């Protein structure tokens, strides 16, 4: 691989040193009818860049116009759509289209050199399979010419095999996509942009036999962001190198947040559940400095006051202070998020709270077995004073009281006059 090509591949796939890229396809205005994501392109681009996107696919015209937003070392890579097709507007019965198209047309629009001059880090081109032999042959010709041009100027060529047309059925689509992926690689693709095949096993096979970086595309927008994240997560599980998602991101109510979530999964190894909490995620961990603790118990009192107004005594406090017999000092006992209670619970009644990261009790799952109380190494899970009804009407004589980190703003840290207990760090929970 030439130095120029390697350098641009790194720009796209190695911004985070993990060989992965979260990219957005924003070239729809070039091929489809005018939709909201086309009209609001500039705003959407601002948001996805803010979200940390690694690359953005644009039409040549928008590449010129929006080039300033890609400047700088931290800017995303610009991918230029080098060809054009009318597939989104095909169908004479499609009355939603202003000017319906009858025949699929696929054309080469800019050369690799022109794309490079526009500032492209890579180009993207289609290869249609399943429409008819002429379109396939023309696509092969376009891809071969681009591959040769790209090699000459050191520009990564991302090919996008698409299964579309009368020859494509529900049963052969995976086979056609696998065929297309391999054909693209044989033609000289440096990377692939390809639809997810629907399951990890078949997609992994595609990725393995392609043996170049594979970016999964999102397809039509799902109503639920989770769907896009799960598709992406499965793609990564199948060893893809990231995504080049379009409408799922550009039509999202919050494109920037979705990019953050995708980046969280790709670059930080987050689960989908964890990534979905990007915005409010404020996982904190408490720590203590025993030498500073005077044993004043203010933290204990504040804990009870903030949670159990009206109760008598401090036995319900989610932390405690004990005397360290040898040193004569004090020891602050609090929830360390050790996860033992979650692991021991036989009914999954305890989990990480998705917003605060504290231990949360799901009362409906609890059987009041007491295992969590017994296992807590710091002894800060207690029996409640009173019982509780579950939503099914069952009555529990007691339930475990756990530290909720005061929804992210622990009272104990706020009131401690010496700073003996404090928020030490954010913590990744698994």
């Amino acid at each position, binding site marked *: 691989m030439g130095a120029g090509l390697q350098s641009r591949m790194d720009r796209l796939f190695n911004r985070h040193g993990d060989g992965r890229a979260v990219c957005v396809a924003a070239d729809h205005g070039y091929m489809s009818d*005018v939709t909201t994501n086309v009209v609001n392109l500039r705003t959407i681009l601002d948001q996805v860049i803010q979200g940390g996107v690694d690359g953005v696919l644009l*039409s*040549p*015209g928008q590449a010129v116009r929006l080039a300033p937003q890609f400047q700088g070392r931290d800017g995303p890579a610009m991918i230029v759509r080098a060809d054009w097709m009318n597939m989104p507007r095909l169908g004479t019965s499609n009355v939603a289209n*202003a000017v319906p198209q009858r025949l699929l*047309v696929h054309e080469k629009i*800019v050369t690799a050199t022109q794309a490079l001059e526009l500032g492209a880090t890579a180009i993207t081109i289609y290869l249609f399979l399943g429409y008819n032999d002429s379109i396939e042959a023309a696509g092969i010709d376009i891809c071969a010419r681009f591959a040769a041009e790209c090699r000459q100027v050191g520009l990564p060529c991302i090919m996008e095999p698409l299964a579309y047309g009368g020859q494509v059925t529900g049963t052969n689509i995976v086979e056609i996509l696998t065929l297309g992926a391999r054909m693209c690689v044989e033609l000289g693709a440096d990377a692939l942009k390809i639809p997810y095949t629907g399951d990890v096993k078949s997609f992994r096979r595609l990725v393995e036999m392609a043996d170049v970086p594979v970016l999964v595309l999102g397809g039509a927008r799902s109503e639920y962001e989770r769907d896009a994240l799960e598709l992406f997560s499965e793609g990564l599980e199948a060893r893809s190198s990231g995504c080049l998602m379009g409408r799922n991101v550009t039509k999202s109510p919050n494109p920037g947040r979705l990019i953050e979530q995708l980046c969280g999964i790709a670059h930080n190894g987050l689960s989908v559940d964890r990534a979905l909490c990007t915005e409010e995620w404020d996982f904190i961990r408490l720590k203590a400095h025993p030498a500073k603790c005077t044993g004043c118990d203010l933290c204990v009192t504040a804990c009870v006051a903030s949670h159990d107004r009206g109760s008598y005594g401090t036995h319900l406090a989610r932390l405690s202070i004990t005397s360290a017999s040898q040193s004569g000092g004090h020891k602050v006992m609090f929830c360390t998020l050790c996860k033992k209670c979650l692991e021991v619970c036989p009914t999954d009644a305890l989990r990480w709270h998705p917003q605060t990261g504290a231990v949360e009790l799901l009362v409906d799952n609890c059987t009041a077995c007491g295992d969590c109380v017994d296992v807590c190494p710091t002894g800060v899970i207690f029996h409640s004073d009173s019982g509780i009804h579950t939503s099914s009407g069952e009555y529990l004589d007691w339930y475990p009281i756990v530290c909720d980190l005061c929804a992210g703003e622990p009272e104990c840290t706020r009131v401690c006059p010496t700073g003996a207990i404090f928020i030490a760090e954010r913590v990744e929970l698994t």
Partner: protein
Amino acid sequence: MDSKTYRIKEFFNPADQRSLIVDTSACLSLGPLPGLEIFKQDVKPILHLVDGVVTSPGQVQVLSGRTHKDAALLVRADWTNAMRGPEFVLPPDKIKHITLINASQALELGGSALVLYFLLGHEEQIEAGCLKMTVQLAIEGSQIGLPLIIDVQPIGERVVLQSKAVELGASYGLEGGADGIAVPWPGVESFKIIIKMAAGMPVWVKPRTIDNAQNEIDEALQLGATGLWLDEKVFAHPDAAGRIESLSSQIYPAITIKEGPQESL
């Protein structure tokens, strides 16, 4: 200021940054049109009334000798028979669309911009060709600082939704790299979308008629149109210069000079 911006400003009114363009290039496809039979004689009288005149490459020289008060020249870069109807002496059997000159040639002719049709509603290959021409001329133009204006023409028989077709043409023009677009008046809602898409780029509106266009011109200007783009039909008006002058006064806010108290001598 880069050279492209410099050239764009040549066909804008410096006082208010609005623009009135007259397109005379239809003769390239339709021959001598009413009011444009003798090009030099018919066009020269209106040069001082407008900001830009679109001409075919061959007529550029005819308009030499312009002063700073006269219109800038915008050069038509393409030819098509799509404007010819069934009644035309050579009715089109198949729609054709080709480029005539590239950006460098237009610059050598003294053009301040290139103008290209974007035809919608014809065969798929015509549309694909328009897109390719747009991108190529935009890239060439960017290299030498010559702006490209896309003249949206949703006139093919396949157009189902006229206003949406205008939006589509505007979108394709912008995605292709145009520096400005001229669109037929598509109605308020579609024009709002086009203005939003253009994000500050010049958008000229082509009124549906010359005589009763006051409302749509007012609406377009209020929504953010750059100005008017008049086609060859304005020359068919019995008083073409008078009509252009009247439209000109409509797009440029009236400038009044308050008389101060005269000192008695």
